[in-house]
């Protein structure tokens, strides 16, 4: 293609659009640079080992051990996924393999709606319904008396599970629906039942997509803030029971949001909070790379 040397409008537009296309990369890089710039000064005062494995977080004494927050983030994420993966997977299998048309048409929009509800609304329902239920009803049922608090790992896992269900369902569903029909028909032709076909053919073929969906959900849970603050109890110890006062805890996200407003800019405490952000960002970044890799390996195509 021969073009004049003079600036033509197509090249101007091309340049401008390239700039737009690079904006996301630019914002991402700035996020990294700013977090490192604000967070790294901490390690002049506190060693990275003490920061990650220390269990005491006492800003007034200059002691910054983030282990309890890290443990809290891991526990709520695991709790949410343990409930959401079986439920989400079975719902996806149902929708792709078993459901009659009318049921599919009913559940699909419901899942889209579930995906769109802001997390603050889930938190409100958890505070109004779930926490009293755990504290009084479950307390009486399990221990014969009410628990001291209703907040904690049980309530927060359940709330997070409902929040993350739509992601797991929709990604698993996409990858199950892209399993070639011929695979399943071959299995049926050999006399397999529907369940045998699902277990031996559909699920193994769709596995990378299912795992990718779960990792995507994992990233979402690690980063969730509002639900965790309102339902996990914000206690600076490690969760050790399923119910009651010892089941509370605090996550990385909660610590950042709750403490940032009190912190003098430029202090060690300020740096420590940004360092919590760095841990969070790196975790989520790794999860996202794994999930995208698996999605590109699976049969799911845009």
């Amino acid at each position, binding site marked *: 293609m021969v073009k004049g040397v003079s600036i033509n409008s197509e090249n101007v537009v091309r340049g401008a659009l390239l700039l737009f296309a690079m904006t996301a990369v630019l914002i991402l890089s700035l996020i990294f640079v700013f977090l490192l710039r604000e967070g790294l000064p901490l390690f002049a005062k506190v060693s990275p080992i003490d920061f990650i494995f220390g269990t005491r977080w006492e800003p007034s004494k200059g002691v910054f051990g983030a282990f309890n927050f890290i443990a809290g983030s891991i526990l709520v994420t695991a709790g949410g996924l343990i409930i959401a993966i079986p439920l989400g997977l079975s719902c996806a299998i149902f929708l792709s393999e078993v459901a009659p048309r009318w049921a599919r048409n009913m559940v699909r929009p419901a899942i889209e709606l579930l995906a769109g509800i802001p997390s603050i609304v889930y938190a409100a329902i958890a505070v109004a319904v779930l926490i009293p239920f755990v504290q009084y009803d479950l307390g009486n049922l399990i221990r014969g008396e009410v628990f001291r608090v209703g907040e904690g790992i049980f309530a927060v896992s359940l709330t997070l599970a409902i929040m993350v269900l739509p992601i797991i369902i929709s990604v698993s569903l996409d990858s199950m629906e892209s399993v070639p029909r011929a695979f399943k028909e071959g299995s049926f032709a050999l006399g397999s039942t529907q369940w045998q076909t699902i277990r031996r053919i559909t699920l193994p073929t769709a596995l990378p997509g299912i795992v990718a969906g779960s990792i995507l959900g994992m990233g979402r849970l690690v980063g*969730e803030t509002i639900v965790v603050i309102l339902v996990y109890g914000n206690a600076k110890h490690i969760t050790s029971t399923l119910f009651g006062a010892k089941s509370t805890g605090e996550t990385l996200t909660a610590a950042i949001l709750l403490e940032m407003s009190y912190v003098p800019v430029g202090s060690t405490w300020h740096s420590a909070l940004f360092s919590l952000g760095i841990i969070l960002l790196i975790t989520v970044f790794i999860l996202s790379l794994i999930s995208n890799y698996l999605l590109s390996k699976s049969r799911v195509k845009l």
Partner: protein
Amino acid sequence: MNPIDPEKTNRIAITSLWISALSIILILLYIIFYVFQRGFPVIGIDFLLGWPSNNWLEGGILPAIVGTLLLGVVALLFAVPIGVGASIYLSEFTKEGKLTKLIRTGADSLNAVPSIVFGLFGLTLFLFYLNMKPCLLIAGLTLGFMILPTIMRTSEIAIRAVPVPDKEGSYALGATKLQTIRRIVLPSALPGIVTGVILGFGRAVGETAPIIWLISFWPANLPSSPLEPCNALTVVMYFLISEAQNPLFIQRAFGIALILLLMILISNYITRTLNNYLTRNIRR
């Protein structure tokens, strides 16, 4: 010989699949029912169009509704031109290579960044480095950064779905690339792009954590310029839930929850209608 009857296993498995799917529907219906039940009695003209008093604990929530809508608009004003431009670049102006891979990985990773980290970013960039005060503009921009990947992805899908013969027809008639993009590609991709815009708007208005330091909670304020502080429904709701022990405040929080839910319901309905329109168009 199978020790377990496969037919029986099949029946058990299929039944439990039905049960789990139905329980998810029940949970969802309960959530929606509950928000309506608690929120509906609160909502009235005074609540929707009145001014708050006593730290949002009494009166109406008009400034928060207006603030939330304005925040969504500012976020879109940033993210839509840039996101759509980026997707035009990716689908029309370049071949797949290292650069597009970088752009896509960047957008995917940005999409995965937790909302609280966007809050830290907005705080650092605007308040610490640029010495600005919390206001509509910076909170809206922070939300715009957050929804950019969503807009990019949905517009790219829409633009790639434009049939190649349509474009070739335009080129055959002597149209330039820019003319083809403006007259053929963008109009046919519009419903898909609008879907992404609504998705992004829904996500922006529902977020709490990224704007919590960039929003003014009290006093209530209707911003007359982008540099004035504004309020947001989610942040007011957060304070009502976290600060207040009084059940009356929770009740007010559910009033706000119902407004947010209705916003999401309406936008879902619009996207659904547009999607149906889009698929019908492609089939024809």
